[in-house]
């Protein structure tokens, strides 16, 4: 009984919404109503309110495709388009497809290269029964977080002028693998010169030093939307059954091995930030207490938070390794004398 109470408490603390298992009648989200969409397109309710769209619903298929594509690019940024529809103040992403463009620093308008591909693909898709229109674009930021760079912001502003409704999604496949949860963000830009009324506190994420300027300059020009996911009843059923074959992969995954490079990079980046913070501290010792002191302090606090995050991920990885060692290797202990130590000591929770 205790475990049930513990679970309920945990769910309450984390605002877990129990998603009802979708039954076949609720697969209506998959139905594409051409006339309703055309009508919505005519009305353009977003033209008056830059903050009109607040939520994004991504289908299981779209998420899977985007993450796999982003990961397959390795350290190169990749991009693609998303297809879907709108529903009140939510944008629904049903599917995604990759574009054959390589990300470079100076790419401003990648869609120009890929227009032919996009037109071809959309046509063939419509024939095959995928009726939705392109409703956004996604790209990856391997290793440096989910935010819009200066180039991304200008691209998105252009899109929002001519191709409304349009959404920008950023995925970080490296952090996804390292943290064990999907790193994804959905954004819309404000039109030129618009000042947001209130500044919503977005979730903190660490940005590497070489990108932090780009982030800071533009971070006020766009806002993030809430992301939820949905899947069909058949998807639900299949995913449940998939677990029967899948648990092997969960047990055999070794995050410590896979993420070694990334973690090393993060730590060296953190070291640089620490040096910067130290220099600032040395300079401001003589100056009177003022806002500058506060700013430097919060930098140190940020560094602390980042280091805690890296450590937690490492500890998780190590825990998996220790558990696997105990499970599969401790057989040899029975052969040795019982006076010997039985493997590494249990870790104290940080």
């Amino acid at each position, binding site marked *: 009984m205790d475990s049930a109470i513990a679970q309920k408490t945990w769910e309450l603390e984390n605002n877990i919404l129990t998603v009802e298992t979708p039954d076949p009648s609720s697969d209506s989200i998959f139905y594409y109503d051409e006339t309703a969409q055309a009508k919505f397109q005519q009305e353009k309710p977003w033209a008056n309110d830059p903050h009109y769209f607040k939520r994004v619903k991504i289908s299981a298929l779209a998420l899977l495709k985007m993450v796999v594509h982003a990961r397959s690019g390795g350290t190169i940024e990749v991009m693609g388009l998303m297809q879907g529809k709108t529903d009140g103040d939510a944008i629904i992403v049903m599917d995604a497809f990759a574009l054959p463009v390589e990300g470079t620093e100076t790419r401003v308008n990648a869609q120009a290269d890929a227009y032919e591909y996009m037109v071809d693909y959309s046509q063939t898709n419509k024939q095959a029964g995928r009726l939705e229109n392109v409703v956004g674009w996604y790209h990856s930021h391997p290793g440096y977080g989910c935010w819009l760079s200066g180039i991304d912001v200008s691209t998105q502003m252009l899109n929002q002028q001519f191709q409304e409704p349009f959404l920008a999604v950023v995925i970080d496949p490296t952090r996804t693998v390292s943290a064990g949860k999907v790193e994804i963000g959905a954004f819309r830009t404000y039109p030129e010169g618009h000042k947001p009324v209130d500044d919503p506190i977005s979730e903190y994420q660490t940005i590497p030093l070489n990108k932090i300027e780009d982030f800071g300059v533009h971070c006020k020009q766009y806002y993030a939307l809430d992301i939820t996911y949905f899947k069909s009843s058949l998807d639900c059923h299949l995913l449940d059954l998939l677990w029967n074959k899948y648990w092997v992969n969960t047990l055999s995954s070794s995050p410590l091995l896979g993420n070694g490079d990334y973690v090393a990079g993060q730590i060296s980046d953190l070291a640089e930030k620490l040096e910067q913070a130290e220099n600032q501290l040395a300079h401001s010792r003589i100056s009177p207490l003022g806002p500058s002191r506060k700013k430097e302090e919060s930098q*140190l606090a940020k560094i602390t938070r980042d*280091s805690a995050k890296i450590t937690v991920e*490492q500890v998780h990885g190590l825990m998996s390794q220790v558990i696997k060692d105990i*499970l599969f290797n401790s057989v040899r202990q029975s052969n040795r004398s019982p006076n010997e130590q039985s493997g590494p000591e249990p870790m104290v929770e940080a």
Partner: protein
Amino acid sequence: MASSSSSGLTFKLHPLVIVNISDHYTRVKSQMNPPPLTSTSTTVNGVEPLQQAPRVYGCVIGVQRGRTVEIFNSFELLYDPSTHSLDRPFLEKKQELYKKVFPHFYILGWYSTGSDAQESDMHIHKALMDINESPLYVLLNPTINPAQKDLPVTIYESELHVIDGIPQLIFVRSSYTIETVEAERISVDHVAHLKPSDGGSAATQLAAHLTGIHSAIKMLNSRIRVLHHYLVGMQKGDVPCENSLLRQVSSLLRRLPAIESEKFQDDFLMEYNDTLLITYLAMFTNCSSTMNELVDKFNTAYDRHSRRGGRTAFI
């Protein structure tokens, strides 16, 4: 029609393909059966609206390395009911498009939905043989059966068998494993269990991570129990003795312990120490940050510059 395959190829299926096929089917089905405009219309007559179960067709692509065939992705195809074949120019167009984005993938076969392989499918299968000499046929059964424990996906290969003196191609079932990359696994996990996506406290992250491992170990435990139960039955004599199974179980057990070398122990401890070192560093950073804050707060509270040697009542 479905005996076990003897071609010796091992098949690996990625979950993306399964979700792709399922989505294709759901999409087509829901376009054919538009949802009722009002919520009461389904119950008014007391009769369920006719749910047609369409068959969808598509192509699977992936890589073949030696004897291993790995199916990575799939896309939809058009079926021409008049000629009972797939639309060829459409297939070629799509193949071109996909080649641009995934240059390493080749067409490995085709897929369809349904409960069992049918005679007419052989027609389509033969048509694909000029692209790939031995194409695969992936069949997904879309009927949701809650009692089912196994994934309703079967992979068929075609083999030339001599039946009644005539060499014929028939479908034979092949076994497959589910293969995945780390990123795919995480996103499937995410969607399947809808775990909390935001940071949460360290405790919830830890709980989520350990829950995942716990479920996997529970599965392992239940599978071992099944084996154990079976072996006990064999020992008692309830179940006839099967030597091949006994050999398999024995070889499985002999694989434990998994690794036992000195070098492994060294590397393991080194990794362990590295993680402890990182924890130590993080603790240091945390401590120095807290100290810094303390010093600042102290300086703010007991401001020495304003009065000599005294304390101010700081408000």
